Each structure stands twice: as C-alpha cells, then as structure tokens.
C-alpha cells in the first residue's frame, strides 16, 4: 500500500510539497514512484531558476517512461538534490525523504494551502486505479 503522509500537500500530477516557512520542498509521491517503476535519471532545474505554478520544471525518467514534474507554486529554485544525479534510485527507496527533488522559495507563502490534502490526493489515486 502506498503511503500518503498527512503533513504534506499534493498535486494531482503526483508531486508532494512540504512547507518550511517561505521555502517548500518538492518530490514525487510513493504512489507515483511505484507506478513509474525503477527511476534511472532525474533532470533537475537550475538553482536560481524562476517558476510559475504549473511550469514543467524537472523530468523524472524511469525504466518505463519520461514524466514531467510541475512546479507546485510560483517562486525561485534555491536548492536541488544533487544526490539524485548518481543515485536516482533514492526516489524509489525514499520518496518522502532522501528522494526529494528541489526546494523553491515561494513568492506567496499561502499558495501551498490551495494544494490537495493527503486525503484528497489519496482519493484521486484510488479513483485512478479503478
């Protein structure tokens, strides 16, 4: 069974978002990594890049397919997870911790509140499977 930590917010495109003041951490959900299969490459954004909510900002490549990662909120990329360069399997092994993708300094710190809750996202995933 996939995990849906309740302290996180989610996008219907399967990213998770964790807010820490005016910075948010972004990764992909347990459900998403399981559906993708073994992750073999992650193309991360550049530090300093600016984004709007919904921008295609990164790409995750699994044995199965290439999938776009969308910016959950507007802001500036302040850090990327350099460990994914040599160890993309961290996305499968630890999707909510070591497998994070990038951090964004948000323009509007209330933007995260409009994203899906764990319960809403889980319901979407379960509907997708049926």
């Amino acid at each position: 069974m996939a995990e849906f930590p309740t302290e996180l917010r989610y996008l219907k495109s399967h990213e998770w978002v964790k807010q820490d003041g005016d910075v948010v951490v972004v990764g992909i959900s347990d459900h998403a990594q399981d559906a993708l299969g073994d992750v073999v490459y992650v193309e991360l954004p550049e530090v300093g890049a600016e984004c709007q909510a919904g921008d295609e900002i990164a790409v995750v490549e699994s044995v199965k397919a290439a999938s776009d990662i969308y910016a959950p909120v507007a802001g500036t990329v302040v850090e990327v997870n350099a460990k994914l360069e040599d160890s993309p399997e961290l996305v499968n092994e630890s999707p909510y911790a070591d497998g994070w993708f990038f951090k964004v300094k948000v323009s509007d710190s209330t933007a995260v509140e409009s994203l899906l809750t764990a319960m809403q996202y889980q319901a979407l995933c379960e509907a997708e499977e049926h």
Partner: protein
Amino acid sequence: MGKKTPLFEKHESLGAKMADFGGWDMPIHYGSQIEEHHAVRQDAGVFDVSHMTVVELHGADGLAYLDRLLANDIGRVKSPGQAMYSAMLSETGGVLDDLIVYATGDPYLVVVNCATRGKDLAWMRRVAEGYECEVVERPEFAILAIQGPRAIEKVKSIVGEDLVGDGKVGEQKVALIEGLKVFQGGWCDGWFIARTGYTGEKGVEIILPEDQAVPFWDSLLEAGIRPIGLGARDTLRLEAGMNLYGNDMDESVTPLESNMANTVFLEGRDFLGADVLRKQTEHDELVGLVMAGKGILRAHYPVFSDGAPVGEITSGAFSPTLGKSIALARVSATSSNMTVGIRGKMQAVECVNPPFVRNGKQVYKPKKPR
C-alpha cells in the same frame, strides 16, 4: 480482462505488476525491473512467455512452403531441430513478423509474436494454399524461457529430479539438453526444449503442456531462479541488439532496413517479397546508439548526423549492464558526429554496431561512418 497464461495466479501471488500485452495480462515486473535484469545477466531468471503463439506445419510440403514463406533459407539448415530466425514478408517486402522456426521435419515447429497472431495465421494459411501443408495453431502449450549464465545447470538439476515412473524421463531430458547445440531444440516426453532465447545469455526455452507449467515453475523458483517480467525482457533484448516487432520493424520497412540482412538469402530463391529486396540497393539502416552523457534515449526521438536530421530512435532505454542509455535507430546516414534531440536539446551519441552486450559483457564496436 485480457487472456491469462496458466501462470497468471503465480504472478499475482508474487506481487507482479500486471499490464496488458497484446491482449494478455502479463507480468511487467515483480518489484524491481533493474534487479531482474541483473539476475539474468549474473545468475538465472525465468520468463513466462506463454502468450507467444506456437504453430505447427503438418504435411509433406513443409520445406517447400517455408522456402516460399520466409526470407531466411530453410534449405541451409542441416541439423535436426536447428532453429532459424527469419522475417516473414509481405509481397511488397514489408516485415509482417519475425519468427523462429525449428527444423524438426514434419511437423515443423514455428513460434510467432502474440500481437501479430491473427494476421500471421491468416497470411500463413493463405500462402499454404497449393502446398500440402496445414497450418495448425497449438494454443494448449505454455512457454517458459530460462536464461542466464547458470540457467542451463539449474534446469538440468530440476528436470533430472523429475522422477516420474521409472525415472527415465528425467534422464532423457537431461541427455537432450546436454546434447543440444546453441540454437537447436528437440522433443522429449511432450516437452520441446531449445537452446534459444531473447536475452543474449545462455539458456533454454521450453514449450510444455500447460497443465505442467505450474509445478515446473514452482521447481524453478525453489532452485533459486528468479521470476523476470516483460520489462526486463525488453532491456535485455535491447542490450543484446535484438529487434522488437512493432518497435524496430513493421510492415513499412524491409529486413534490409532492420539490421536483418544476415537473415536474408536471395540467391536462387523466390520467397515472397524477394523481388522488392533485390531492387532495394539504397536504403536506411538500423544502427545502435550509445549515450555517454546523462539522460535516457526513447523511441521516436529524432537523430541527427553532422547536424542534419537522418531518422529516429525505434527503441531506447537505460542499459542496466552498461549504466548508460542505449538505443536502436533507423537512419539514412551515420557519422562520427551523431546527436539525438531530447526535449529540444541536442545530446551527443556514439553510433555503434549492435549487439551492445553478450554473455554479461560489453561488446559493441563503433560503426564506420558512411
């Protein structure tokens, strides 16, 4: 709901991720496709490929019929049970399917792809008109491929312990396996065992009655042979430089454009599609690509030579054995300056002659530009 092999419930109980494959519910992986890939390169794995279509050719004209049906020359096959890989062509030279025929005499044994089953059977029956040759599908078989450096020794130990009745059958199967050359098969007690495969490793493919598939599968897993899904089957065959029908070739291309020229014998022959191949002196070719940089090559990405578009990738993947991405691509020209467009950016690739990997080792060589 798709069709199910006799091992469907085994796959489910192993936690396989199942998906539709040519109308069949098949296992894609059992947890990690990459670990399964390595298991076949380093030890032994078993694939359920019962979705593939087994056909027998009954009648006195089998040899003459195959000479008309196939681009490869059945007349060159001398050893009993020897396997021959061939394209089956339309009258216009397009590849209808690729198949394996085992030279077992009457009846000849043929294995074709599942996605092309209906089309293949209709074509094979149409071509058989006028020959004393009946095309008979044998759907009551299961097919297991056991592949990897330790596959044959493990299979021998299992079938050797198969002490049914007086125990002679197990001994006979072991003797059959020990006597087989690479790319040769033979019948024993209702099982057809052949030293063929789709991975570039040593191994066997076994066609057996479907009611014996579950106990044999259980014995294979008890012996430490790992179940392998169709995901790893695809990366293994790509590393081995083997084409996948529907990706690397189809009816719109000839075998000469599909890196299959070594399976085409034109001289003195009159097979279907031969006239078209004789006239095809200038054509595209299917080449291998290796990318040293990060990223994954995928089907349909555009390929460039010295900056000019020359074709596209037909199959691409991350190669677990090489730790980088590899691909097959159909191109009109090659050079020492080849690139692939990945999401709008040009990435350098090396153009090589497949295969990429054989028996667990990197084997590819740079291709001479033309």
